[in-house]
């Protein structure tokens, strides 16, 4: 069965510092990996995806993620965090059918001025 794990409930970072949100996955076959973000009172917004190709994927709002097959990880990164990046971040993997995503439990990011 496909699954993802986000080991941190919350990540605290000062504005301007690098931000990393961790995600590990377990899949059978090739992984299709996604990151979504939820801002307060908003829906889940797509940030980026890994389907195939370069291991470093660039997405919206200056975020990027690195696919590491040997470590089965897909960590989300941003070189310099902004206060406006404070939100709930979800890692997801395609489930056992195209129409189904398997999400992690989410990581709350708090960026302090």
């Amino acid at each position, binding site marked *: 069965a496909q699954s993802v794990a986000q080991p941190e409930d919350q990540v605290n970072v000062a504005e301007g510092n690098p931000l990393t949100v961790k995600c590990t996955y377990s899949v059978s076959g090739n992984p299709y990996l996604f990151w979504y973000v939820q801002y307060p009172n908003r829906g889940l917004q797509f940030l980026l995806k890994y389907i195939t190709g370069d291991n470093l994927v660039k997405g919206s709002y200056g975020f990027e993620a690195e696919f590491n097959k040997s470590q089965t990880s897909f960590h989300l990164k941003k070189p310099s965090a902004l206060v406006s990046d404070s939100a709930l971040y979800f890692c997801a993997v395609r489930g056992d059918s*195209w*129409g189904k*995503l398997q999400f992690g439990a989410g990581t709350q990011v708090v960026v302090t001025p």
Partner: protein
Amino acid sequence: EAGVTQFPSHSVIEKGQTVTLRCDPISGHDNLYWYRRVMGKEIKFLLHFVKESKQDESGMPNNRFLAERTGGTYSTLKVQPAELEDSGVYFCASSQDVNSDRLGGYTFGSGTRLTVV
């Protein structure tokens, strides 16, 4: 283009009552999904409609949950009778086709926060 709309945004009901959540997908999107996040845990898949047909309802927790999609447009998710463990945030998402799904082309609504007391 209007996004995916869900209402109500919040609902507080007593145990044993009935609640109906509604989702209006983006016009023209054949695929509609329901997910929920319970108690700060992972977001879990509930079911998938293609037009008015249920493609996959493997995530529906029990027969207290009934989802419908009238005419392939909006969808409702009814919980009857509601239990305490049904509290959580219910998300709806839509996509144009399966290929959009593959590329992460879901559009999610802002969710309905359901509290059962």
